[in-house]
């Protein structure tokens, strides 16, 4: 028998955890809840150990040739953390109950979910949808996480949020919203009994404090230490600095590009801004060179990524372009909305100022910022980014398609192409169509991409298996059940 779980690992988190994250049915479309979900829940199909859409609770997937049905067979003897059996009913229940990000899209495409027997469940689509697994089976939505039907019906949604039960490796032990979450290894997990008995997730808002905490060994993981703090962590003996390979790009949305009165409606101005920013310098300063300079809103690692021409930092030409556009003395570019924890806003603002584009920085906390972005009421420039997994198409749907959940772009040509590709089953054609979209984006200067962000993870000396990059596209450390504490620590 495997050794009983032992010891405690503690995280110093950069984001505030909340009980709304407990319910994958309400996944907001950001990466944050994954932090808990990987511990608490398990999905039919999900990114797992090297596979972006790996089977987890299911051990078999049958796909019909017409691309209309997907049948999952669950592993036998699955149990929730309270000991209840996990069956196909729960899978269907979870899907039907799902109302988080992408729910509408998913439900529009899925005609029916049928429970064939306690271990088999069949998804029937209305029309062929090549991205079904990308949506259902990755973390682009949270629909594949399986929740206990019986329990939820018993305690209700509110009750569930207070005492959530899942099928994941760790059971919630105690939580103080916004402060600390405690998890305990579950003995019912199918994959294995976790190595570490307790996980503690602590929200430490201030990055300097996070660094101090890990230096003193108060936490074993510290996330998002950038700039000077990252350098200091790198210098500190015993600490390991890593970056998660995640498809996160930071790019600036020209929120006012369709406002005739705004200078941003002029593509020349947008181009000028593009070449006024020295991406490399920013990478070095903020991410210790760990990030990648970026020229597209789509991450390079994503399927259907098209490699755009790289703009060259050239402030002189930027000034010239501005003059040509009728702004020889620069102009007032409104706000630059950013996420407060962000490292890029200030240097970008400064580079823009250099060529005469004056913008005012407007930082808000990450969650608030995302919310504002999604509300689409912002003007001027919006520095945003996305770590949502998926492929180029899902990204484009979100950020580029007219009416996309975070899209400030309204481009009919692009919309047409996006519609076409979404029904295209031929991969090559689809690749071409998506490349076309990305070309248009680049030509029409719809965005100002800056960096592919580095999610810096600092691990302390006690950590054995740190879980960094073990789950594809997951910025956090996981799978939690695989983490270990170094012996003798």
């Amino acid at each position, binding site marked *: 028998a495997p050794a009983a779980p032992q010891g405690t690992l503690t995280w110093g988190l950069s984001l505030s955890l909340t009980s709304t994250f407990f319910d994958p049915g309400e996944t907001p479309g950001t990466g944050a809840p994954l932090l808990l979900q990987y511990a608490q829940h398990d999905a039919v199909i999900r990114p797992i150990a090297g596979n972006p859409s790996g089977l987890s609770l299911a051990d078999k997937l049958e796909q019909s040739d017409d691309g209309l049905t997907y049948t999952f067979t669950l592993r036998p003897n699955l149990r929730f953390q309270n000991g209840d059996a996990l069956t196909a009913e729960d899978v269907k229940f979870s899907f039907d109950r799902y109302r988080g990000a992408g729910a509408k899209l998913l439900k529009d495409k899925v005609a029916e979910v049928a429970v064939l027997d306690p271990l088999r469940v069949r998804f029937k689509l209305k029309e062929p949808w090549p991205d079904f697994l990308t949506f259902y089976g990755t973390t682009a939505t949270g629909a594949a996480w399986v929740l206990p039907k019986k329990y939820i019906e018993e305690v209700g949604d509110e009750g569930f949020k207070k005492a959530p039960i899942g099928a994941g490796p760790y059971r919630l032990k105690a939580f103080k919203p916004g402060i600390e979450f405690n998890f305990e290894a579950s003995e019912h997990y199918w994959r294995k009994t976790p190595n570490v008995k307790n996980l503690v997730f602590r929200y430490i808002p*201030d*990055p*300097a404090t996070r*660094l*101090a905490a890990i*230096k003193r060994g108060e936490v074993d993981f510290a996330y998002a230490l950038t*700039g*000077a*703090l990252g*350098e*200091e962590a790198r*210098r500190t003996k015993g600490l390991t600095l890593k970056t998660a390979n995640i498809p996160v790009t930071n790019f600036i949305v020209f929120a006012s590009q369709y406002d005739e009165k705004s200078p941003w409606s002029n593509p020349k101005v947008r181009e000028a801004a593009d070449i006024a920013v*020295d991406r490399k*310098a*920013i990478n*070095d*300063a903020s991410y210790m060179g760990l990030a990648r300079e970026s020229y597209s809103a789509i991450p390079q690692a994503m399927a259907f990524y098209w490699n755009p021409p790289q703009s060259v930092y050239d402030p002189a030409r930027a000034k010239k372009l501005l003059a040509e556009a009728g702004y020889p003395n620069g102009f007032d570019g409104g706000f630059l909305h950013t996420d*407060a924890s962000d490292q890029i806003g*200030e*240097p970008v*603002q*400064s*580079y823009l*100022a*250099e060529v005469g584009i004056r913008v*005012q*920085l*407007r*930082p808000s906390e990450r969650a608030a910022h995302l919310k504002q972005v999604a509300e689409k009421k912002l003007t001027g420039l919006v520095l945003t980014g996305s770590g949502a997994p998926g492929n180029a198409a899902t990204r484009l749907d979100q950020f580029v398609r007219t009416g996309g959940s975070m899209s400030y772009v309204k481009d009919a040509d692009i919309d047409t192409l996006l519609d076409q590709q979404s029904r295209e089953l031929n991969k090559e054609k689809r690749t071409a169509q998506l490349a076309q979209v990305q070309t248009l984006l680049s030509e029409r200067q719809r965005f100002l991409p800056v960096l592919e962000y580095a999610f810096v993870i600092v691990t302390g000396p006690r950590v054995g298996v740190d879980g960094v990059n073990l789950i594809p596209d997951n910025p956090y450390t996981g799978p939690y059940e695989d983490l270990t504490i170094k012996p003798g620590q």
Partner: protein
Amino acid sequence: MSALPASAAVPAAPRKARWRGLPYIAFAILGVFLIMALGADFIAPHNPERAALSLRYLPPAWVDGGRAAYFLGTDHLGRDVLSQLIFGARISLIVGGTSVVIAGVLGTAIGIAAGYLGGWFDQVMMRLVDAWLALPSLVFAIFLAAVVGPSETNLVVILAAVYWTRYARVVRSEVLSLRERDFVRLAIVAGASPSRIMARHLLPNVANTAIVLATLMLGSVIVTEASLSFLGVGVPPPRPAWGLMLSDGRKGLMAGYWWLTVFPGLCIMLVVLAASLIGDWLRDRLDPSLRPLS
């Protein structure tokens, strides 16, 4: 208690035996900052908002690796700390000064009117003052800032809205006692109208209190402003405000970039110190009972 010296057995009356040079030093400090604030454009060696990432984290000139051109070093974006401090003085003093003045004028006027007229006006105003004073200034300011959003003008309005109540309370209680003073009674007997009494008899007599209060308040206001910046609801970046510099500099603290926090903190402390020294001094100075007879 045998260790007590004889002087402890007969403690000194609170005579003003303070070192006379102190107010001059305070004035000098404030003067230097004022000059910095006014002449920032000419004095500052660099544009405070201009980043040069290649020059990040230069230490002060006298430390190894420092450069004379960046006397107090540079921050995480390579901006000159000294220039930021100089421009920061402008924000601190302007935001602080203006809000203290606005709060003072408003609070004094309301305090005089409430104290002298009494009645419903007094009741309404004082209940408002009570209620508003019940909010800790920083919390109230944060709340207002969250409501109206950050900008320098908003900040002035916020700070004035938070601090006028203090003047109103103090001035009112002073007016209540002045109102019972014989010279006010005699002015009534002489036939002076209420507005005349308020303007000519009460105002000049509470002016000192208000001025002293203002200097003492200047310190709190500057600290509050810095705290707001620190919490991210103050002057929006990249305006070089001291509080903001501290907040940014905190990240460098752990990495040993002490100059990013030590200098702005020192500036705030010096200004506040100078303001409160001047306040103390003015209080002694303006108190006619302490003025030498000629």
